[in-house]
């Protein structure tokens, strides 16, 4: 029995040797194909384009399905996708799209106007099919396809968002057989985009194959893999080692550390995200009844404006974001330059103090001002525990507001608790933020009266609980304005109104930090073209532009071909092998000694 146990030990040692050696052969076999590997973290909720709502899910639908229109990599303007051109009727209610001829689905079937007509009609009639993108087809009259190349959409009111329909168009011949629009579609998907999803293993990888029939031309690579990394440090290592080629979501410390790696090219660009502090202006439900427990003193717009004046975005950018962010200005992030209102938010504590003195907020003996009812001004500041901006920023904000005589008590709690509290109006000050889209309609709608919840704090997605007639009127105007230049003017005006009402204070816009292997890939197309991003796009341009080659510039000097990784590997393997062999010899020697000892007994 003893011998058997020893034998088992020896077998496991042999297995270990076996594990380490043949793996080299395994890695070599995939080299025939040109594959771009990108690291991701977020879980995929579904591959069904009608129900997926996660960021990774919508990115995959963009890659697999061409939309009617897409966003220009240069400046996010709507440009032709499946529709090669479009026109509106004089009453702005009828949109006629001309569908591109000669484009094909990945199974070889031609793409016709019947496909978008089927998709859109399905979303208007089947609740399940409207799960993810139903908001786009609300207020539509009808969708028809009079012939193979013409798609006609009639809306009930004029809509400025008709060229920003983020709706995956699916093949009619595949989906008309589907009865349950909630179910997962079989793989591989049938699509029209540059890459088609082939295989998926939850929390392991998503594999896409290049669509050789793609109407813009076949991608220059054969496949695109997304590999899951739940730990960003491990992901950085995978990039340095070459397990992956491209990653985003770096934190400033990691980004700076990678600057010295000659094989890595760093990329940062204007983000899509706005970060803000909400100031509860007296939250009310959709029917106008007050809800929540916000401090009533904050109903005074002068007090809110003074708070906004006392918060220094420059310091937050430098200290909290390590410089990788843009200083606060308008509500729409600067990545969307056309709509962004560029006037920097002022930081002036002296002015804030003066405003508060004039408005009658008298400082007490402890330096804290009293509100109009004589109570000291004490505000809660709600933030997301574990989030860098909230944890660090709350300390700065507390001290800035102390300078103007307001006592702040930061409360860092779980994300979901912040959501519950802000949705129900149970806050004074709270950290919040949104990722904006090329079309600003959605983030603008968050500040309208209509986005306030019902009496039990549900049924809508409120943000700052602003309900302002001037803002709402402008919102309706921009939604109906189909002249882009005029609409941009209205949107800029709305941002001025928001700044003036001070129910939210913009803190800044953090830049996504990305990195890729400069020794393997030529530069990627970014969106927007100058100072843009590769992975976090509103489109497929970054992945579609992937070209095997090299990126060389001042930051990434040309170095010897990437033999370094292999050398390390060989050394490691040899070292590991030596250890294992030694262990085996030792074990064998002991086995022999024991064997004789047993016999002797």
């Amino acid at each position, binding site marked *: 029995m003893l011998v058997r146990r020893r034998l088992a030990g020896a077998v496991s040692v042999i297995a270990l040797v076996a594990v380490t050696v043949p793996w080299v052969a395994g890695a070599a076999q995939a080299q025939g194909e040109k594959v771009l590997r990108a690291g991701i973290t977020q879980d995929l909720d579904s591959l*069904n384009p009608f129900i997926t709502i996660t960021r990774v899910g919508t990115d995959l639908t963009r890659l697999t399905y061409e939309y009617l229109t897409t966003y220009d990599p240069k400046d996010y303007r709507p440009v032709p996708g499946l529709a090669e051109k479009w026109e509106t009727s004089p009453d702005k209610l009828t949109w006629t799209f001309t569908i591109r001829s000669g484009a094909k689905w990945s199974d070889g079937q031609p793409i016709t106007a019947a496909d978008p007509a089927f998709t859109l009609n399905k979303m208007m009639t089947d609740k399940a099919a409207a799960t993810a993108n139903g908001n786009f087809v609300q207020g539509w009259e009808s969708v028809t396809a009079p012939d193979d190349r013409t798609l006609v959409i009639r809306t009930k009111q004029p809509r400025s968002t008709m060229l920003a329909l983020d709706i995956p168009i699916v093949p009619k011949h595949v989906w008309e057989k589907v009865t349950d629009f909630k179910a*997962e579609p079989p793989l591989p998907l049938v699509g029209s985009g540059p890459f088609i999803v082939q295989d998926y293993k939850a929390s392991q990888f998503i594999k896409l194959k290049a669509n050789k029939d793609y109407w813009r031309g076949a991608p220059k690579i054969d496949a695109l893999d997304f590999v899951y990394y*739940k*730990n960003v440090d491990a992901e950085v290592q*995978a990039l340095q080692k070459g397990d992956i080629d491209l990653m985003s979501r770096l934190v400033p410390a990691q980004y700076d550390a990678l600057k010295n790696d000659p094989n890595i090219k760093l990329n940062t660009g204007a983000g899509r995200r706005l970060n803000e502090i909400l100031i509860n202006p007296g939250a009310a439900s959709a029917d106008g009844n007050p809800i929540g427990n916000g401090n009533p003193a904050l109903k005074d717009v002068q007090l809110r404006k003074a708070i906004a004046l006392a918060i220094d975005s420059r310091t937050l950018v430098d200290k909290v974001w390590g410089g990788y962010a843009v200083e606060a200005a308008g509500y729409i992030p600067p990545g969307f330059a056309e709509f962004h209102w560029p006037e920097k938010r002022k930081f002036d504590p002296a002015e804030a103090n003066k405003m508060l003195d004039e408005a009658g907020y008298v400082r007490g003996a402890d330096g804290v001002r009293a509100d109009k009812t004589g109570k000291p001004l004490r505000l809660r500041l709600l933030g997301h525990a574990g989030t860098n901006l909230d944890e660090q920023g709350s300390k700065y904000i507390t001290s800035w507001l102390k300078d103007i005589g307001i006592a702040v008590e930061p409360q860092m709690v779980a994300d979901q608790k912040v959501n519950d509290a802000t949705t129900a109006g149970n806050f004074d000050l709270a950290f919040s933020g949104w990722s904006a889209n090329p079309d600003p309609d959605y983030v603008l709608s968050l500040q309208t009266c209509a986005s306030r919840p019902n009496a039990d704090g549900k049924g*809508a997605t409120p943000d700052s609980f602003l309900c302002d007639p001037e803002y709402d009127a402008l919102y309706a105007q921009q939604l109906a304005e189909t002249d882009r230049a005029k609409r941009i003017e209205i949107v800029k005006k709305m941002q001025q109104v928001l700044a003036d009402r001070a129910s939210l204070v913009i803190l800044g816009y953090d830049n996504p930090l990305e990195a890729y292997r400069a020794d393997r890939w030529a530069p990627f197309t970014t969106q927007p073209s100058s100072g843009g991003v590769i992975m976090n796009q509103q489109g497929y341009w970054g992945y579609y532009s992937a070209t095997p080659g090299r990126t060389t510039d001042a930051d990434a000097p040309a170095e010897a071909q990437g033999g370094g990784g292999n050398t390390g590997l060989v050394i490691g393997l040899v070292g590991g092998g030596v250890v294992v062999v030694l262990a085996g010899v030792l074990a064998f020697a002991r086995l022999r000694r024991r064997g004789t000892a047993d016999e002797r007994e």
Partner: protein
Amino acid sequence: MTDFLAPVEETIAEAPPPQRGGGAVRYLLTKVGGAIMSVLMVVVLGFFLFRVMPGDPVTIMTRGRPVSGAQLDQLRAEHGFDQPILVQFWNYLVGLLHGDFGNSYAFNAPAGAIIGERLGPTLLLSGTAAVLAAALGLWLGAKTAWYRNGPLDRASTGVALVFWSIPPWWLGVVLLMIAGGVFPTGGMQSPDSPTALVPHALDVAHHMVLPVFTLVLAIYGQYQLVMRASLLEEMNSDYLTTARAKGLRDDMVRRRHALPNALLPTTTLVFLHLGMVVSGAITVEAVYSWPGLGQLTAEALEAKDLPLLQGIFIVLVIAVVIMNLVADVLLRVLDPRVRAS
């Protein structure tokens, strides 16, 4: 003779003698009964526990998405969140009796199927680590106790304590930095893992090396220390003197006489820990992006995926309960003193 009353003597004679077997059955039944009760309580607890957690699942589901109030209400109705909590509880119980954990909304699939998919990787990782750690810990524990205060004892007991105190995720990150160049940086298989059985198994084994090593280092210490302590207790027993007096070699005294007695408390410990194997490695799974149950728990919590959370909770608890049961039964088999009492 009458069938009305049997003579007293006869009754006594016919009464069965106290049997060990009957005791064993009763013992087993009590233990199994207790186990079933625990699971039932957990089923109830799991349902209400996760509903006390903050956060509205529908809001979390649609975070950062342009959705209308009507869409939110539609989602809420679809997942049954608009029903009274007792109705939801009843539906949950009925589903559970049919072996249905409900539908996970974070993954758009039956929760049972998702848990099943993740159970394998976790068993593979934590199971391998548990077996290796137990073997290493017990062996080292026996050695160090036998040669107590020797150089091996002093060195390895210290080392064991150090590894036991280090948080596993930190150890994982450090190991990854040291050895990540040779071993994969994460996952259970390469995206282009070969499909043939043996090469695929090797690919998985290669991915296992670092996480298993981390887990072994993190847990072997407690086995070693418990084993060492329980062997030390036996060291001065008279039966060992007797064994030596018989002329047995020191090695044999240890292996044949001291170890079997010292193993008793350690066996219980090992099985209690095997129960935790299923849930055991959340942090290590996170460091190495291992697609197991620990990872799934974190993902489900983040999305507040109630059906998935409930399912995982039940599976984890059942694993612990079963292993406790096995430990109880095994202890009875191994130790005659437990049988006697």
